[in-house]
């Protein structure tokens, strides 16, 4: 994607832009979750609407991935009930459910290597043959 406002002709890959948008959404969700937890700790019943919408917008992004990966009937059923609760305000989400969804989102983002930072391959370097093999020697 070429940024014409910047007067540059070097394009940024669409994948990178999507990743940045997801990270932004994840950051917003975490901030909202913090606020929710704070109110919950103060024994007030906090409103879930904003939190639900934040989860929902990230979930929409990840839905195609989830549909590809979660193919068993139980997984499908669970996902549909979560979506109903989030988008159609059917029921309030339980705190444990919120935690489950957030953790799952984080797990997916890690699997998709959006949030994974420890990408360096670890192996026993003191074994010279292992090192040779990793560097492409037979």
């Amino acid at each position, binding site marked *: 994607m070429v940024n014409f406002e910047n007067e540059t002709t070097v394009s940024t890959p669409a994948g990178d832009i999507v990743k940045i948008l997801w990270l932004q959404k994840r950051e917003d969700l975490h901030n909202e979750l913090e606020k929710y937890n704070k109110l919950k700790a103060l024994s007030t019943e906090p409103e879930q609407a904003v939190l639900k919408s934040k989860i929902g917008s990230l979930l929409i992004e990840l839905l195609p991935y989830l549909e590809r990966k979660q193919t068993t009937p139980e997984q499908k059923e669970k996902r549909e009930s979560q979506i109903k609760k989030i988008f159609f305000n059917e029921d309030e989400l339980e705190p444990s459910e919120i935690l489950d969804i957030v953790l799952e989102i984080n797990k997916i983002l890690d699997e998709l290597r959006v949030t994974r930072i420890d990408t360096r391959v670890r192996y026993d370097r*003191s*074994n*010279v*043959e292992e*090192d*040779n093999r990793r*560097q*492409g*020697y*037979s």
Partner: protein
Amino acid sequence: MGYLYEYGTAFTKSLKKNIDIQLERVENKRASMIVIDGAVGTGKTTLAVEIMDYINSKTGKDKVILNPKEHPQIALGGKEFIGCFNKCYKEGYKVLTYDEGGDFSKRGAITKLNRTLNRAFETYRGFKILVIICLPNFSILDSLLFENEIPRLLVHITDRSKYQGEYFLYSLSQMNWLRYWFNKLNVATRKKAFSYVLPNAKGHFKNLPPMREKELDKLSTAGKSKVWKETEIQLEGLYSYKELAKALNITHQHVRTKVNKLKIKHVRMIDRVKYFDKSVFDKLNDTLRKDKNTR
């Protein structure tokens, strides 16, 4: 045993592990060579003997023979290399060391060494013998050896005290990076290459027991004394029959006849080879010229 670590070797675990891996590789009929490099007197041959002792003990053999007359597992110089290879194969030894032993003072020795090594690995791979090579600097090895991926492990000895030495291990890929830096840097800063490339492991090795150290000294001195004698002859400017024949451009037999006829006595005799001084060359040259004129 003060000369061994608690796990039974004279060197630390990092090297032990890699030697076991190399032995396994050799057993699978893959060519493998361990290079030990370091400055003069850092203990290259000592470490090589310790490695061989360990491999011998693993394969049910006695310790390495350090007799100057009979040393099947240590080739002192390129001439002995192929002979030792065959001896090791016949006697069932799994490891052989090529010790440069002053070989590199000779002109063309590096080319000969590279040729011998290339030939040996092409021909004797099936012998399942691990080769250890002791050199002052591994970068003199032929690039063909590296292209064929034969040197697998570099043991770079950096320091040696009265009781122990220190080494760094480099894999083939790291060796190639070292070679890259050797080519890039000038002679004055070449040694810095070792600080640019991360070693795979490091460790220590202990000295040999005093008795074996003495035996090893005797052996390496025997190997070097031959070279020393040759150097002495070169410095004194002495000629053998062979060299006289070459310089005068006549046959070996012709030189012998002339020397006998003129009743010339040799000035020195080393290893049953007679040596003559420069005046003999001049005398023979004059005689030959006269003979030519009278004809």
